[in-house]
């Protein structure tokens, strides 16, 4: 019994202490959530910001990429959002619909630093809803081709592919599955690759204002056919990135001649491959069905939460991180590509030959449909696509199934849009 009293007493003291403790240590503390590796790199950029703004103290919290989306939503549901965060721009529609984000349009209009016309247009547009900007692009992330220049040359190709038919010829020439050699690595649980191929088509991925899936369109079927054929012709192994294990060293050993991936891999390949192999690989913009093609407009933006009590301080940090010189340093630290054209015209980016393909690709990126359900739809799309790759579904069956799943997910959205006024939620 005595122990019980002691435990209860201790619990009461803890409860009393926590209720007394102020929510924020002091009024100038800015909490900033970062996702993945950006959190490590930014620690080197913050001292200068804190020198310039001695009254602001930034507290960083790093979220792992796999748990970030969930953690942000939970924070919103639990009313414990930080002052600001980075947010993947495919997640933007969701948080805008939730009303979690502070509109930044007025601040952009008067800013000396953030100039919308300096940003790549598609990237900027992923942050704008009904003409109001809710986030400032921080870095961009698009997918394109890493390729083994030496292996292409040995197979008789002097330049990377410019269109699908050329690409197909190269994949066929470079694939020898019985010798464990494949043209390309396309992990079957990553949706970005198929999405990029689909965005190169004239048909949009959803129809009727995001009310229904549009996967049965001719364009998407063409993209899916190209994707699935790559596996059926054994030009890519039918594996997920869990089994791919260490794609960098396998790329170095020539298991894959192409690797369809994002800019962070420039840094990875520089780090993981020996110096003697550094001239063997290069990057190339994505080939399209006929000529240079589009790719996904991914990346992260900086957003301020509506509930934040330090919006001015948060905006100062957004402006600081948006400066071209700071973005350039950020690129040096991590390889994350800046979203502003002026950041590309200076420093190491201008002189980096391996970044140039990204510069070119960024002028040709397309955003995914701006509906909150997109993340869920694209996941289902990839699950069905993986079934098609495994040979369980034909192209027609797969696209019909994708539309069926998308329509089910979008049911609530249709109901919301068809109501006389959609209460308080911007769609």
């Amino acid at each position, binding site marked *: 019994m005595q122990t019980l009293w002691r435990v209860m007493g201790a619990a009461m003291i803890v409860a009393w202490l926590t209720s007394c403790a102020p929510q924020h240590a002091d009024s100038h503390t800015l909490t900033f959530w970062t996702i993945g590796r950006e959190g490590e790199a930014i620690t080197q950029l913050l001292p200068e910001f804190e020198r310039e703004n001695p009254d602001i103290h930034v507290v960083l919290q790093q979220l792992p990429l796999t748990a970030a989306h*969930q953690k942000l*939503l939970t924070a919103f549901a639990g009313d414990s959002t930080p002052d600001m965060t980075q947010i993947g721009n495919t997640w933007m529609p969701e948080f805008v619909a*939730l009303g979690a984000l502070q509109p930044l349009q007025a601040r952009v209009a008067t800013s000396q630093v953030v100039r919308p016309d300096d940003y790549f247009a598609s990237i900027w547009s992923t942050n704008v809803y009904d003409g109001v900007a809710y986030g400032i692009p921080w870095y961009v992330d698009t997918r394109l081709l890493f390729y083994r220049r030496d292996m292409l040359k040995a197979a008789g190709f002097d330049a990377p592919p410019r269109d699908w038919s050329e690409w197909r010829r190269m994949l066929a020439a470079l694939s020898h599955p019985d010798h464990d050699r494949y043209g390309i690595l396309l992990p079957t649980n990553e949706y970005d690759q198929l999405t990029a191929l689909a965005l190169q088509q004239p048909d949009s991925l959803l129809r009727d204002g995001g009310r229904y899936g549009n996967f049965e369109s001719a364009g998407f079927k063409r993209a899916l056919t190209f994707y699935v054929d790559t596996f059926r012709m054994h030009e890519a192994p039918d594996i997920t990135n869990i*089994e791919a294990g260490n794609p960098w060293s396998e790329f170095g050993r020539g298991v894959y001649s192409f690797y369809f991936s994002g800019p962070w891999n420039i840094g990875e390949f520089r780090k993981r491959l020996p110096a003697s192999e550094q001239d063997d690989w290069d990057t190339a913009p994505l080939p399209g069905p006929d000529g240079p093609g589009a790719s996904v407009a991914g990346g992260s933006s900086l957003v301020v939460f509506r509930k934040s009590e330090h919006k001015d301080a948060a905006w100062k940090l957004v402006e600081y991180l948006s400066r071209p010189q700071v973005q350039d340093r950020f690129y040096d630290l991590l390889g994350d590509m800046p979203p502003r054209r002026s950041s590309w015209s200076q420093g190491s980016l201008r002189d980096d030959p391996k970044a140039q393909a990204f510069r070119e690709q960024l002028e040709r990126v397309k955003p995914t449909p701006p509906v*909150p359900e997109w993340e869920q739809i694209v996941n289902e799309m990839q699950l069905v696509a993986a079934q098609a790759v495994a040979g369980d579904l034909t192209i027609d069956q797969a696209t019909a199934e994708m539309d069926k799943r998308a329509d089910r997910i979008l049911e*609530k959205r249709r109901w919301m849009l068809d109501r006389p006024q959609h209460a308080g939620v911007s769609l």
Partner: protein
Amino acid sequence: MNRQHAAWMFLAPAAIVLGVFFLVPVIGAFVLSLTDYDLYALADLHNLRFVAFGNYWALLHRPLFWAALWHTVYFVVVAVPLSMIVSLCAALLLHSPLARCKPFFRTALFAPVVTTVVAVAVVWRYLFNTKYGLVNYVLAGVGIHPIDWLGDPHWAMPAIILFAVWKNFGYNMIILLAGLQAIPADYYEAARIDGASAWQQFRHITLPMLAPILLMVGILTVSGYFQLFAEPYVITEGGPLESTVSVLYLMYNEGFKWWNLGSASAIAFLLFVIMFVVTACMLRFGRQESEA
């Protein structure tokens, strides 16, 4: 104050705690399962619809739910007997008078239970790797072609079963070991004098004496294994081709990944009903056995 009031006074703290932390959330979750609570409703409660049993109806029409249920049942049907046999064998070995270094082996065999599933799952993922994994290396030694353990939809679940049995058998082993130690030695002595072989002793003394404990261990294991989640979550992420999506994994995805809390609660209640029926059947079966 009469006796009844006094009794209630003493019960009240426990009853309140149970009510607040158990009953209210369960009722809340049930109400939630009758609505389409999702992201939009999270933003504004006006976007909440009462759908009665619509979530349940929709789930019963979703192939993925049936697939997840099938994967879970497959897991339970294969892994529970396997797990019980392994733990019984381990307990018998540890109980054997011939065994040496008992405390060491007891600890070693129990170790997987207390290590975190995430840490050991990472290790097992390497063991199962098609190209570099130790499992295939050993199989190659006896002339078996490499198996794509985690990449082939047919092998992913067996791989998870192997992992889960390894991870969990120690817990049952300890309970069964306690049960074995509670069987009086006189019975064995009498049986030996009557000339019973080791197998006969096991068949006619150990098993019947252990039956109630085996039933309890069985029920614990079944209800534990129906809640299969961490293993596929860490090792395969539900893949390949959703072949390791369990009911609980589906619920987690619906609820915490996509915030369709209404539909996730419906899955939870369907799983509860299934588990309730299965354990009730097991209990009834056990009672009939003991009466017979």
